[in-house]
């Protein structure tokens, strides 16, 4: 993208800028933010894969013996594998929400996962059949896919604005 003010002059260290040049510089950042956000395309498999992992967290407590610990350990390893695979493939690493909307959606998903884990644990303590845990696990899977997709849309919007001059 072309800029109104010269690279050579800028490299020479001249901070003198006109009002128009400052606006052009800020405008170029907004355009870059929009272009970067457009590159952040989550592949179709990402949220279902994440949903399987969170469903394992939610339902693992109902499993017998040492299986809950093993299932949760596998889930803990699987999350960084999933996010690193995504980052390497698309060249963009984002580990936290870029704004308030993303933060709210992430907290909502976290609340669903915690509530599902507690439900699963309660089913076990109440002596219910293990298959009851499939209900919070299924809800967690669905919430991860649905909220995850909304989170991505929010992330794109908020990256587009955050890359620019706005605070």
């Amino acid at each position, binding site marked *: *993208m072309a800029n109104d003010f010269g*690279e050579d002059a*800028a490299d020479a260290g001249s901070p003198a*800028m006109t009002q128009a040049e400052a606006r052009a510089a*800020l405008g170029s950042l907004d355009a870059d933010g929009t272009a*970067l956000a457009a*590159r952040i395309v989550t592949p179709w498999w990402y949220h279902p894969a994440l949903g399987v992992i969170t469903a394992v967290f939610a339902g693992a407590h109902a499993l017998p013996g040492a299986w809950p610990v093993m299932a949760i350990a596998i889930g803990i390893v699987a999350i960084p594998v999933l996010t690193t695979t995504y980052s*390497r493939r698309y*060249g963009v690493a984002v580990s936290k929400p870029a704004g308030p909307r993303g933060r709210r959606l992430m907290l909502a998903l976290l609340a669903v996962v915690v509530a599902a884990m507690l439900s699963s644990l309660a089913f076990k303590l109440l002596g219910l059949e293990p298959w009851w845990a499939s209900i919070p696990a299924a809800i967690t899977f669905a919430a991860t896919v649905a909220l995850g997709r909304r989170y991505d849309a929010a992330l794109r919007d908020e990256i587009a604005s955050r890359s620019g001059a706005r605070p």
Partner: protein
Amino acid sequence: MTVAPEPSFSEVIHAPLRLRICGLLRAVDELDFAVIRDALAIDDAKLSKHLKILSDAGFVALRKESSPQRVDARRLTWVALTAAGSAALEAHLAALADIANGSPAS
């Protein structure tokens, strides 16, 4: 509540391409070298030159990582704003906003 940064013009960030590099990095943890190059539509040499200036100033950090997706064993180069770079960028953007709004530059 976040405190607005004190406007301060950075001569390192002032160059248009360096400002745009920092702007891209502002919203993410890290970006791959190739993503920045493509987003700015510049060549490798030009981006390397500007990243070196930013790195020498302590404003960006570079990290190499092997890439199993690449059969030629090239490595990914991740670029991130440092804390000092982030502070300098916010102050520089505040100074630019002052100029754009007709206020005296800091």
